């Protein structure tokens, strides 16, 4: 049986609803319609009264989720697109994220963000918000890159007693397939060596994992073995696994689909430079999207975001250094 990344997200929600009566889903069009991407298809029918259509009100959606979490419910919020979560930003960063520190009362909720670019998505349906949320204390930020992680990490997210921003990549929804749902999972908070190597390390996450793996394959033809680290979660960030990889290879390229200023790639390089300066044989490099809004036309979009060939090109430069 073939399972897509999107199927995995739906099945994880089905299992969460079945396993815990406190779980409910709230978001725009998530009910009988099954969601804009069909990530909740069939769930409203299977779990009557627990998969609720919300008004077009991201602030209220998040506020409602927070209140429900205070009372012991475990809400899963679907933002229709990650981009629209900015309309609920205040409740996420100032309310959900501060609640435990301020009051000692934890706030278990999951915000699913359909993230990242797709051809034709344009400036308001393509953004990668993980760095924005990771900046704020009190939030977990998960960025699954595989079907297995989409399933197991979403189930894990529902069990975490704190607010979790779950960045699921729209480009992977139907492109990425696996043979079945995983029966066991790596723990949240651990990065994974997606491809072992010895000449350089690529640290990446989400859809950029697949561009990076393709680049590593391309460069293998030149005789270089590139190690690829899939972060899986950007907060917490598994600094130990990154440093161990850099210790093996001496070279670091960090690849992210997000905008270049600050962000996950900058954080990784800051940590490696501070903690592992002596491990580096060359200056660490980063490859991000361009510093413009995400363009609509596929020809522009394909250059705005890092691609396998752009990653390969950046890696060849790094290997020369």
């Amino acid at each position, binding site marked *: 049986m073939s399972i897509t990344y999107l199927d995995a997200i739906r099945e994880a929600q089905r299992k969460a609803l079945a396993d815990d009566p406190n779980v409910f889903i709230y978001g725009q069009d998530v009910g009988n319609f099954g969601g804009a991407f069909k990530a909740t298809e069939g769930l409203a029918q299977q779990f009557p009264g627990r998969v609720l259509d919300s008004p077009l009100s991201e602030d209220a959606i998040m506020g*409602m989720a927070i*209140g429900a979490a*205070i009372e012991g419910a475990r809400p899963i919020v679907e933002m229709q697109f990650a981009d629209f979560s900015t309309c609920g930003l205040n409740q996420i960063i100032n309310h959900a994220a501060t609640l435990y520190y301020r009051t000692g009362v934890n706030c278990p909720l999951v915000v699913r963000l359909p993230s990242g670019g797709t051809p034709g998505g344009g400036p308001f349906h393509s953004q990668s918000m993980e760095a924005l949320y990771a900046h704020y204390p009190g939030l977990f930020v998960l960025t699954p890159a595989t079907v297995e992680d989409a399933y197991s990490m979403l189930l894990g997210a529902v069990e975490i007693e704190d607010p979790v921003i779950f960045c699921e990549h729209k480009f992977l929804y139907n492109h990425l397939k696996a043979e079945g749902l995983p029966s066991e999972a790596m723990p949240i908070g651990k990065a994974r060596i997606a491809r072992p190597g010895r000449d350089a390390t690529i640290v990446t996450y989400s859809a950029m994992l697949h561009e990076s793996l393709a680049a590593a394959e391309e460069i293998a033809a030149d005789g270089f073995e590139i190690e690829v680290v899939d972060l899986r979660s950007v907060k917490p960030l598994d600094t130990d696994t990154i440093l161990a990889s850099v210790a093996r290879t001496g070279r670091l390229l960090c690849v992210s689909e997000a905008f270049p200023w600050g962000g996950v790639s900058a954080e990784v390089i800051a940590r490696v430079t501070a903690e592992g300066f002596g491990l580096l044989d060359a200056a660490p490099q980063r490859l991000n999207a361009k510093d413009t809004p995400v363009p609509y036309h596929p020809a522009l979009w394909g250059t705005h975001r890092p691609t396998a060939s752009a990653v390969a090109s950046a890696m060849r430069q790094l290997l020369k250094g």
Partner: protein
Amino acid sequence: MSEVVKTRTSAGPAAAGKESVGREFVKAYRIMLTARVLEEKLAALYRAGKIKGGVFLGRGQEALSVSVGINLRRGDIFAPLIRDQAGRMAFGDTILDTLRTYLGSSLGSMRGRDGNIHRGRPREGYYAMISHLGAMIPAVAGGLLARRFRGENGVVGATCLGDGGTSTGAFHEGLNAAAVEKLPLVVVVANNQYAYSTPNTRQFACADLVDKAAGYGVAGHKVDATDLANCLEVVGGAIAAARAGGGPQLIVGDLLRLVGHGEHDPATYIDPELRKKNIGRDCLAVAGALIVEKGWATEADLAAWRSEAKAEVNTTANRVQREPEPDPAEEDWCAISTRELEDDFA
């Protein structure tokens, strides 16, 4: 169709017996008085430099505020705002925890991590406000939704805000979402004429804020917020209507803020003509006069109650000032409860 209930008389609930009306009124008055005396102490401590950060008082808003807290029950949800000392105390907050939070005692509910009016005990239904106005409306609605999932009936959630708060997107989104779900939510607007320095004329263009109720399909209620009897009747009625399944209720109380926005603010912008109007009356004085007029207590009783409250406030303030401050070395500096997953790179 929403219904705007305009009750402006001070007759009190006709159905209740005279004696019980008097008892409830006096109980509410004494909470208002304690809140007033406590806030006078907070102002004095602020002027003496003992309180770090702001002090925000509810002087003139006690009647409306207390009417909310006193009509809620254990098991209800209450998210007060900055001028709700009286309502907070009616809901179970204490002189001790108020002082601990304002003075930053490590023994207070917020442990020095948050201060002044940002206090609460969410597990007890007493939500801790964030500063962003309107934000507590959907939070209380969400709490009520969770209670509904659990099959709890007869629960009410109430939250308060001011005229300025009605201009926020959160107010609109929250009230609308609560109306869609027909939740037992009571939103109490203290229209004190100014949002910090901004007068109503620069805040909204509708004839009356209660007109907004119709737009959301919720019941609307007007109340003379300088009149405790009117407040108890109207707020009590709205809370009972929500409890009985009548859906969200919007209450708008007209009054005047009798202090600055905070104690740092001399409020020179307030139009002196407003002080001469009905809304400029001090609700505490109005309520005290009614108690004496009705014969529920004497002037001497009122003075004794004030002395009693003052003594308790002073004793508690002295005690709290001897309590330990939070110690940065003891603080665990962790913002998540799932500590094993903390991002520990610092």
